[in-house]
């Protein structure tokens, strides 16, 4: 596609429910990143995937968070047993690969946990 596509754009869920957020990176991009942007805050790194290498999960805040990337393309970020503090905008970005300057962000999924 022309850009990084994320779905849904908005998600409201009840505390304790599981949610899945989807990211479609730019075709041909081998690296994919997830960031979290809390209200009025900067972006916080969560996880990245590069090709067939093991993902770097060092930014995931708890074991309730997980992500997978199927076929080197689409990625899904899963949050289990959501808490109110999980409310944020979840942003996905992709790039051609490591060491490449600059990458492209999607518009994000705004998650609200009530």
């Amino acid at each position, binding site marked *: 596609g022309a850009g*990084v596509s994320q779905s849904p754009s908005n998600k409201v869920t009840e505390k304790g429910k599981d949610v899945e957020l989807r990211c479609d990176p730019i075709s041909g991009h081998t*690296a994919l*990143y997830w*960031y979290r942007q809390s209200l*009025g*805050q*900067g*972006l*916080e*790194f969560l996880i*990245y995937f*590069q090709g067939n290498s093991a993902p*770097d999960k060092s*930014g995931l805040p708890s074991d309730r968070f997980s992500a997978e990337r199927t076929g080197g393309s689409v990625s899904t970020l899963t949050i289990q047993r959501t808490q109110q503090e999980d409310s944020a905008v979840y*942003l996905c*970005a992709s*790039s051609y690969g*490591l*060491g*490449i*300057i*600059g*990458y*492209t*962000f*999607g*518009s*994000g999924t705004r998650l609200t946990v009530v």
Partner: protein
Amino acid sequence: QQQVKQSPQSLIVQKGGISIINCAYENTAFDYFPWYQQFPGKGPALLIAIRPDVSEKKEGRFTISFNKSAKQFSLHIMDSQPGDSATYFCAASSMIKAAGNKLTFGGGTRVLVKP
């Protein structure tokens, strides 16, 4: 640990004025410093970036100044326009493969340009 500190949190400037945003970093391994512009409801978009081998980079009305010894860098928006009203983020990363090109972001600056 906040590795990139950004100031001010918000800024109001008259049309035609200069907007200045400052960032300071701690990790000396950082060697790539981009600035992102974000409009409401959109993801951040790369605006301009600098490597530490130069002290200044200019692209149109946007200039990055970099001070390696002080571990500081700044964004100057010359002749600010209402369309520049957005949130600006500085960021930093290490370009070595092991670092994975993960970006560490500052807290953001909301810029409002008044007509």
